[in-house]
């Protein structure tokens, strides 16, 4: 850690990991309700649990992004953060807002725009926190060295904060509501967040592989160009069936086909950089998470997205478990694993010690990634059966769901693996103080 103010990131990462725990616990509970539907149905209905699961995910990923920005912008700009106090104030607002939101959900106060269920005062809190963040990080950026990594990171973060304005706009016309809702939801995860992801991945590659900055930065621009060129008009794949004009079926199909490109490019980029780099960085776990993130993002966001994005396919698969399969693997690969890569890289610096307890961390990678992969497969099979029985044969929803019990049991099993992986990750980050694995006996040459 070169700059004292980078320490702020530590607080962000700790809060993010706490919420990560809440998120996976909520997910596991929701998965259990699919198996045993009467669980908690009177006190804590499914819709509240699901809200906590999705909202906690979004908030912790954002906290991770903010923390990553506070960690890497000083290093890239070669100066301290403009105001450490503002950074902590921003975190405090977000923590109060998050606790307030969870509390209000538990007593039944919530909105009904999916993922944007926060009470109005929490939405304003998030807006204030976003403004504080943008001011703080932009002034740091403007005063120092400007690199492609910070250019792209700041572009992504500015745009994602600006798009938050659409969280306040809720037209009475349901179709317009949906049209503008996607300005937050799609343009976050399939456009602006990709810029943040590419910037953080570029930073990690720079640090972990030792490849020349010029090479990394040039390819970063190429990758984020393909992300926005495909992602912006790719929004059209959400406009097929909401009352929007029919031409979106063509625009959406064509451009979302291209949405595979940035994810393929990011995966290739990560592997080629590691291959070309000669640096033998000690933090192997961070490297594993970086490569894993770009690979799983390619499959989850790229391949599984493409699987049901063409309008002729989506007509049948829209809103089935296929969507759930894609959503889980895409979020895990692109944003969860990337954040965990950044935590894994930064934590040893933030805590002032060498990379340590790599083995536990890497075990958690395989547990979580294996769990998510299995979850994706089971949900894909469930979704295929559901699509056929419900959309082709015409059986009613609940009749079809009753046939899918076996898949939901297997999905719950994979959820257990993910939760164990998450607990292990958090434990290896925060609790373990020394290398756990003892070195084996030294080989004695010449005997």
């Amino acid at each position, binding site marked *: 850690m070169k700059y004292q103010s980078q320490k702020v990131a530590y607080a962000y990462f700790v809060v993010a990991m706490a919420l990560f725990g809440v998120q996976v616990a909520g997910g596991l509970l929701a998965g259990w309700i699919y198996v045993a539907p009467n669980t908690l149905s009177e006190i804590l*209905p499914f819709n509240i649990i699901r809200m906590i699961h999705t909202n906690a995910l979004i908030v912790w990923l954002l906290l991770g992004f903010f923390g990553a920005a506070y960690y890497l912008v000083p290093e890239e700009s070669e100066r301290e953060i403009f105001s450490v106090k503002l950074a902590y104030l921003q975190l405090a607002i977000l923590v109060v807002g998050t606790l307030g939101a969870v509390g209000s959900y538990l007593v039944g106060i919530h909105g009904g725009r999916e993922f944007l269920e926060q009470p109005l005062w929490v939405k304003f809190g998030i807006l204030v926190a976003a403004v504080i963040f943008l001011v703080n990080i932009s002034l740091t950026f403007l005063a120092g060295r400007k690199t492609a990594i910070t250019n792209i990171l700041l572009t992504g973060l500015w745009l994602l904060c600006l798009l938050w304005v659409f969280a306040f706009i809720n037209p009475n016309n349901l179709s317009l509501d949906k049209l503008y809702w996607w300005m937050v939801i799609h343009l976050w995860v399939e456009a602006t967040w990709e810029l943040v992801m590419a910037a953080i991945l570029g930073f990690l590659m720079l640090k972990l592989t030792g490849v020349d900055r010029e090479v990394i930065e040039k390819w970063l621009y190429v990758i984020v160009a393909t992300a926005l060129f495909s992602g912006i008009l790719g929004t059209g794949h959400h406009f097929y069936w909401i009352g929007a004009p029919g031409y979106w079926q063509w625009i959406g199909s064509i451009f979302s086909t291209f949405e595979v490109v940035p994810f393929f490019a990011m995966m290739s980029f990560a592997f080629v950089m590691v291959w070309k780099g000669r640096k033998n960085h000690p933090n192997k776990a961070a490297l594993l998470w970086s490569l894993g993130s770009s690979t799983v993002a390619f499959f989850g966001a790229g391949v599984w997205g493409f699987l049901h994005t063409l309008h002729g396919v989506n007509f049948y698969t829209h809103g089935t478990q296929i969507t759930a399969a894609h959503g889980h693997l895409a979020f895990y690969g692109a944003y969860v694993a990337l954040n965990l890569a950044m935590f894994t890289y930064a934590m040893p610096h933030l805590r002032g010690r060498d990379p340590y307890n790599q083995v536990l961390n890497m075990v958690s990678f395989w547990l979580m990634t294996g769990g998510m992969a299995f979850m994706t497969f089971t949900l894909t099979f469930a979704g295929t059966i559901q699509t056929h029985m419900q959309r082709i044969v015409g059986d009613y929803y609940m009749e079809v769901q009753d046939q899918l019990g076996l898949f939901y049991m297997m999905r719950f099993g994979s959820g257990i693996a993910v939760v164990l992986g998450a607990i292990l990750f958090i434990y290896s980050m925060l609790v373990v103080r020394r290398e756990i694995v003892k070195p084996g006996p030294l080989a004695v040459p010449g005997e």
Partner: protein
Amino acid sequence: MPELLTKSRARNVFYGGSIFFVVVFVALTAQSHRHIVNNATAGMPLTEAVILGKHVWERHSCINCHTLHGEGAYFAPEVGNVMTRWGVMDDAEGAYEILDSWMQAQPSGIEGRRQMPHFEITEEEMRGLAEFLRWADQTDTQNWPPNDAG
């Protein structure tokens, strides 16, 4: 290759191209907005009852179990076409009665069956909710879903 694709050229392509696609997207969105208001959702007036129903729908976060036009959670049936499925699309009174009797019977408490919570909803709100679901049902969704099952 290196002289053709320099870092500054890559950067200019990124910024220039992105602005181009944003402009196209904004123009198409404006056109879609007009299409939705004037054509796709013009089959039924957007009355006070419909608007009230939308607020009722949102306040109880129905979207976190059901899907509406295919968006939402996948825990409970699609409701974008529920009025067609129930055969009361053109019958406001019938729509209210069947919705009200369904929701009053929840939660069913049947073991092994997914449970819909009980909601405190006044008669006016329930009528609004029924009207909102009928209003959503008349939207021109390009013939989605493929059948009445939703």
